């Protein structure tokens, strides 16, 4: 009984608090360096950068003025395949996406917190992968934000 109580105390202490819906960080990097650092950070965490969508290029080609603005899609192949097979309804929100945009001499990266997807898809078997993705994205963005 005493041990169970202690375990409960330890678990409560260690349980993560509810998270915010979007995760956003700033890095003191010009845009092209920022994009390289972000992609490297994703690879360091075992993710493939599947594609980078150049929204700014599309906007400028149509006459709209914008600073650099791109979307990076990242995933782990086997994990994505398994999730897609088990939960096809999740696919519109995948692969994980990080938006990167320039603001003067620095660059901002923002992503949807996968834990927030848990509100949208309350399947219990998604809880663990969503929590893992959150930890990974936080770590990727932290590494990005702390780049010199």
């Amino acid at each position: 009984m005493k041990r169970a109580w202690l375990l409960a105390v330890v678990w409560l202490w260690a349980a993560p608090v509810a998270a915010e819906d979007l995760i956003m960080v700033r890095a003191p990097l010009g845009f092209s360096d920022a994009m390289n650092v972000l992609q490297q950070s994703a690879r360091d965490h075992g993710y493939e950068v599947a594609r980078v969508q150049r929204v700014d290029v599309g906007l400028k080609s149509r006459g709209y003025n914008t600073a650099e603005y791109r979307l990076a899609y990242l995933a782990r192949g086997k994990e994505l395949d398994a999730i897609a097979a088990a939960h096809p309804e999740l696919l519109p929100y995948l692969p994980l996406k990080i938006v990167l945009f320039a603001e003067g001499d620095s660059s901002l990266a923002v992503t949807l917190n996968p834990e927030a997807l848990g509100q949208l898809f309350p399947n219990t078997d998604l809880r663990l992968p969503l929590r893992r993705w959150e930890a990974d994205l936080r770590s990727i963005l932290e590494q990005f934000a702390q780049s010199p």
Partner: protein
Amino acid sequence: MSNLMPINDTITAQAASSLSLMYITRNLWRLALALLALGALAPAGAAYDGARLYAANCAACHGSNGTGGVGVPIALPDFLAQAGDDYLRKTIRLGRPGRVMPAFTKLSDAEVNAIVRHLRSWQTVPAAPVPRVGRGDAGNGARLYASHCASCHGAHGEGGHGTGVTFSRPRDLPVLPPALNNPGFLAAAPDAMIKAVLEHGRANTPMTSFRKAGLSDRNLDDLVAHVRSLGKTGADAGVKPAKDEPAVLTRISNNGMKDTLDRLKGAIAGANMTLIRVAPFDEGIAEKGRENPQRMAVDACDFTLVNQALSIDPRIGLFLPCRITLVEEAGKVRVMAINPKRLSALFNNAELDDLCEKMHAVYVEILEESTL
């Protein structure tokens, strides 16, 4: 890595792991006490590290040195002189519902105080004198507001448009006029602070001194009374609740993948959108040539709408591009898109709501036309 480990090493590792577990179990008391002690100490330690807390929670929007960006500039001398600690604390705690600035409800009081102390380290001029606020005439304040304030702050105090828009985008003003009817602002700002801003204005922003513009002390009291009344009459400042909205918009096509894709392309053209890409969902992730043809992604874009959206919120990229995902199962194709109305609620930006309703309607039209 574990696949490369020699067998002996694996056994040793397993034994070590068992021993570690036994050690942890036997010392559970000590572990619990150590964790509790750490937990008790954490807030006290954090209280002294406002710079770190600011960097982690505020710098992304307000800039590393408080010069602004997606969020308003904080390191303005007049702002820091006029804003009391209580105003800063309440602003952090309550945020600005519907105006991007979130409510930081999970920070401890010690952490909020540490952030406020860090903001104070940027203060270069002493605190402004606190004016005495008399009982104002809200009716006269409304008339004064219409002629002096509404052009910037909006007829109902709804504030300037494009809150949260990064400095990298074209914007009308260096600092967007705040929403005076916002419940977060009204709860944080005392009457004396509102009057001080009216009296002195704020250097390096479009807010000028209304005393210098000729308004009397009583006029300023009237304006304060009117601003205070905006909370009762102002429009709903928060984002629309979306709990009942599905996360995904889905339609089922009884045609195969190829026919559905053809219809989808037609529907996208019909919606005046530019088709960007039709590709397997796992392109770039699966080995080239081994992508799954039963899962496809179709990207399209209405660049005018995207440009408009970026003028409202730079985080809108999380909605982009307009993507339709198709999954073929048992001869039917599930055609899906994110539900912008549901996603919008996560952004705390009321200005996004209208745009997301528009996007929602476009998605529904495309999905229905492609699955008829």
